[in-house]
């Protein structure tokens, strides 16, 4: 029974990983890529780690997998946030099909004052 649940989680997790990487290649600019890749790959990897718990039970491997889920859930969005801010400050503009960019408007206003 546990192996069936583990196998299902493994299949779902890896398909999310593949979708995230396809998004990384297909989408037009860095912010959209960051969105697709971060969301899909984070949940995909967490599901693979959860399937480790179902396959091996709660011994040392399963406990380490649970801790690893916690670390990935905390660190992955923080890294994405850091990259997005750094990209915007280093002067990467949004894709030309974008609708609005209030951050650039506010930052240009602030730079004029200082």
């Amino acid at each position, binding site marked *: 029974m546990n192996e069936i649940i583990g196998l299902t989680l493994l299949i779902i997790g890896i398909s*999310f990983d593949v*979708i*995230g990487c*396809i*998004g990384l290649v*297909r*989408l*037009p*600019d860095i*912010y*959209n890529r*960051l*969105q*697709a890749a*971060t*969301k*899909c790959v*984070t*949940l995909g990897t967490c599901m693979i780690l959860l399937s480790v718990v179902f396959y091996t039970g709660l*011994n*040392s491997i399963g*406990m*380490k997998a649970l*801790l690893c889920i916690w670390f990935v859930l*905390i660190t992955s*969005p*923080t890294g*994405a*946030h850091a990259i*997005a*801010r750094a990209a*915007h400050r280093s002067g990467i503009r*949004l*894709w030309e*099909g*974008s*609708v*609005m*960019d*209030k*951050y*650039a408007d*506010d930052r240009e206003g602030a730079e004029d004052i200082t």
Partner: protein
Amino acid sequence: MKRFVHVLLLFGIWLLLTWSLHWQDLLAGVIIALIADLILGDIYPVNAIKVLNPVRFFWFVVYGVTFLGYVVKANFDVAYRVLNINMPIRPGIVKVRTTLKTDMARTFLANSITLTPGTLSVDFVGDHLYIHWINITSDDAVKETEIIVQRFEHMLERVFE
């Protein structure tokens, strides 16, 4: 008292990581927890201990379940946008306002926004949060705040403030 809770927490993580009750492992764990607390104890967030209060813990569990639901929904949303041939995206950066005050609550809010459907937090300036939104549906600032931030704000307020 604060130091004692920190050392206990670090020792618990050590026990989970080594997963053995041999006396040499326990001794090494106590020594390493003490050293880590001496070096890094000052930058540890104080508010984290408040979560152990049962009422706050209940709301933390409610927040976690809601958050996981939104994460799964976000993944299907991304899959729909990526695998569609026409790529129905309408991206842009919007500015929303939050009422949360403590650092811990703001960190959790920003991380939750990054993992929920179609949004990615870019920067925090004062009370305002800049968010990259993959499919902008409204041009009104008040409405955007309602759609994005208020999914989590009332729960995080009960947990951390």
